[in-house]
């Protein structure tokens, strides 16, 4: 098996692991970490495809690699917004619960 295939298959497993955590973990911060794992799986899969595209003397296709840098930075920005939202939720309600609030009287 080539190294690209090995990492591509690993990436598929990472997506699955992250997806499971996103659904099964109740705490929003845990969901956020799991979502980042899932996202990194997508990135690694994309990176493995970039490595497959090695040609013209380059070790990998530079176009997907450059897009990966963009993706990592944007994922960080989205995580920062989510963390701020989460901290605000806790300050406002004293709870990190995502459960539906009981109906008001």
């Amino acid at each position, binding site marked *: 098996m080539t190294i690209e295939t090995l990492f591509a298959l690993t990436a598929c497993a990472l997506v699955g*692991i992250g997806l499971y955590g996103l659904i099964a973990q109740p*705490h929003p911060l845990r969901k956020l970490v799991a979502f980042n794992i899932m996202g990194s799986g997508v990135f690694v899969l994309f990176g493995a495809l970039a490595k497959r595209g090695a040609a013209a003397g380059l070790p*990998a296709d530079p176009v997907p690699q450059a897009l990966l840098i963009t993706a990592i930075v944007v994922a960080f*920005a989205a995580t920062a917004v989510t963390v701020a939202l989460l901290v605000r939720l*806790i300050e406002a309600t004293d709870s990190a619960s995502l459960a539906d609030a009981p109906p008001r009287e």
Partner: protein
Amino acid sequence: MSTVVSAAVVLLLLWLAVWTVVARDAFLAVAGFVVYGLLLALVWVRLAGIDVALTEAAIGGGLTGALLLGAVGRLRGTEAATATEGASAGARAGAAVLAVAVTAALMLGVLVLPEPVPTLAPLVVPAMPATGVGNPITGVLLAFRALDTLLEATVLVIALIGVWSFAPDRAWGGRPGPRYQTDPDGVLAWLARVLPPIGVVIGIYVFWAGADHPGGKFQAATILAAMWMLVQMAGLSDAPRTSHRGLRAGIVAGPLVFIAVGVLGLWAAGSFLAYPPGLAKPLIVVIEVALLPTLVLVLALLMNGPPRRGGPA
């Protein structure tokens, strides 16, 4: 030999991913995620993506990890309460089935990937001399796919506006985070005096080297932002007021210069973000130099979070 190393990295990566998902509490999960991010940087090296590896180590593992660790501290008290809201055994089994199905479908896709491999590398290589930069990644980011980079810088600014809007009304325009107080003769304060000069030099080197070698503005901006965070955390300087006009101007300056260069291309080279022949390198340098301060400010302020104190009276 290299196969053994790759197999070991893969096993460790999968183990850490499972660990972050099933760990007993959020702190352990985040600690696992930081290690996971560093290991991921190794994966990028194995996949011949040195630029991606630098970005992953700096932003994916470093900044995201620090951000999540900060959040764990704030959220400590809320974990026990949500523990009772955990998915039922049936729902967890459903999630596991779904996760396995998604993984299997993706793996099937990987195993039937097309041959010959589609690649844009043969188009990038002959076009590189026209850009005047030697690193193909930088060429893609600032010449062939400059629009993506412009949108990315814009996304960062919008994300910062999003984070700031979570400020309570009383703190709007004030300073983010706590005012850190540390022992002025302590280790942290000492490090915050010794490291920044070195960090700034390394940051600027990584920035400048990005033209021809792995590196570039994002990695450099992360290093510089980390230095600023260190000085803040050691209590040597306070976080800036988010209403400061100079600060806000600095935040939007990078994308605005980028757009201005794009419009110049419309007028001088026939399309938005096109570079006139012979002027590609100088224009790329102008964009990079304009973007660097913006990226440093935005990355550090995203880490700082929303304003919390010292708003309008």
